[in-house]
């Protein structure tokens, strides 16, 4: 049985339809990526799943509990890391976690141990008595993830977990996130608009304008744009093209002084190419499709194109950050 089940979910705000007939399932123990540009309906869907919003129609279940009707049971089975930090900056790291443990009614005998374990897990045990306002963006995000796991949820929601982090912290956080399902026996539901980050997901659903426009594993989705491309330079390109077509049985053509080969498994093709062409090969370059290409193909636009307006200064900062980094 899937741990998250969403059936024909619709959410309207006035005459704006934020989520338009969305259905999907998430299997237990996997990392599920919910992708789409800002304003596509990702956060609205999360808010419905977390029982913070009730849907206009349709149903959503977490671990068999109806999100609209059994909010207390749903909330007990989930942990959430929101886009913007929800830590109390004027409390210490440890105090923030203790607060969480009480809030989720963690047993007295377990409380301190779970808090200590969580702090150790994110390498912040030595800083446990520091006020959170002294922490960097990456540390805060990790602390939030650790906090979200204290009550042993079945599903952990991560809403744009790497937003606003520098590249090094992002990599660091990802290494940490991909270990979560195994180490903590938890299913990860994450949203992102960084297509390259979604590569770690087992399954992905791409949402645009409130509708799911594609879903599947990253590899399946990439097939939509037609596999890998190999760029090859040889001493005699015309001769090589004929040979490649004949021996490897792939589509190849010469373009701007390079041979352009389109294939499904580019990496496996390369050794065979070299064997076939031998010494005449001057250079080989493999280009794999990205999920961004998938999005571009499906919608005709880049995922990072921003729309909508926001007065919130934090959002403004985030936008400024994205402008600098995209």
């Amino acid at each position, binding site marked *: 049985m899937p741990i998250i089940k969403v059936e024909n979910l619709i959410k309207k705000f006035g005459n704006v339809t934020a989520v338009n007939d969305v259905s999907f399932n998430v299997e237990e123990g996997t990392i599920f990526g919910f992708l789409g540009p800002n304003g596509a309906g990702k956060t609205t869907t999360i808010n419905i799943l977390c029982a913070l919003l009730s849907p206009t129609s349709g149903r959503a279940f977490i671990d068999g509990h109806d999100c609209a009707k059994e909010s207390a049971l749903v*909330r007990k089975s989930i942990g959430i890391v929101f886009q913007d930090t929800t830590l109390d900056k004027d409390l210490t790291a440890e105090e923030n976690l203790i607060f969480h443990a*009480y*809030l989720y009614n963690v047993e007295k005998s377990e409380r301190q141990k779970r808090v200590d374990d969580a702090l150790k897990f994110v390498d912040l045990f030595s800083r446990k008595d520091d006020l959170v306002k002294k922490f960097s963006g990456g540390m805060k995000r990790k602390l939030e993830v650790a906090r979200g796991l204290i009550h042993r949820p079945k599903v952990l929601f991560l809403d744009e977990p790497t937003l606003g982090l520098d590249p090094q912290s992002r990599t660091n956080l990802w290494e940490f996130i991909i270990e979560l399902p195994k180490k903590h026996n938890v299913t990860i539901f994450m949203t992102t608009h960084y297509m390259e980050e979604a590569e770690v997901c087992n399954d992905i659903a791409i949402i645009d304008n409130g509708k799911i426009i594609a879903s599947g594993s990253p590899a399946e989705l990439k097939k939509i744009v037609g596999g890998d491309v190999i760029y090859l330079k040889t001493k005699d390109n015309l001769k090589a093209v004929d040979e490649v077509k004949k021996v490897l049985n792939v589509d190849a053509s010469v373009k701007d002084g390079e041979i352009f080969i389109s294939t499904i498994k580019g990496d496996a093709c390369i050794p065979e190419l070299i064997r076939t062409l031998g010494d005449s090969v001057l250079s080989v370059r493999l280009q794999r499709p990205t999920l961004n290409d998938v999005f571009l193909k499906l919608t005709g636009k880049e995922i990072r194109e921003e729309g909508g307006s926001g007065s919130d200064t934090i959002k403004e900062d985030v936008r400024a950050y994205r402008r600098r980094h995209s």
Partner: protein
Amino acid sequence: MEFNAIYVIVAREFKKFVREKSRLISAIARPLVWLFLVGAGMSRLVAPVGGVSYMQFIFPGILGMTILFSSMFSSISIIWDKEFGFMKEILVAPVSRFSIVIGKALSGTIISTIQAVIVLALFPFLGLKLGILNIIGVILICTTVSFSISAFGIVLATFYESYESFSVIMNFIIMPMFFLSGAMYPVKLLPEILKFVAKLNPLTYGVDALKHVISPLATGPMSPDFNVFVDIGVIIAMSVVFVLIGGKAFERKG
């Protein structure tokens, strides 16, 4: 009701209150300024009536003011929590909205009562004579009034989204509540229209109940305006109403 959740909401506020020394100092300074600068000046203009000096007359009102400001500030911190995101951490937890409101109201109650007790310690300097029973009475009334005003502040906070609205609350709600509570001048001397507004003000009944206990022998204009049982009944009834409205408002806005 989730007692662990209520406990930890209160513990958080208390910890932050103890940490922020400047908040405590300004909370104590405000009543002192009113009592000794405004009160001492006005004493020159207002003669004692029935053995009660003006400074003694406003002392219950100054306690009420201490409670008003600290309870309102404590509850309005909900707006800060919303602004800085922490409220979401509480709202997604498996905790009823009712427990959140109770937790927040108790936070305000404890913090306000502590401050009121500090101000209360000034009574010998004003020539007041309070027995142990009167002191206990004053503290009990302060606790009840603190709860009621804190709950009222929570209701207000659920309607405001950003801290820009804070000055609106300060100027259009907190200050009028203070002046129309009988703190500085008796409600019975107010014009009819203001008398009507004063009767809607929860703080009026709190200040009045304190007058009963602090200057029980006062007569004439300096005497309390209502029956002490009416005072206590209204405070408790208003507390219940505010908690219920606050819980509902949280449920809706959540």
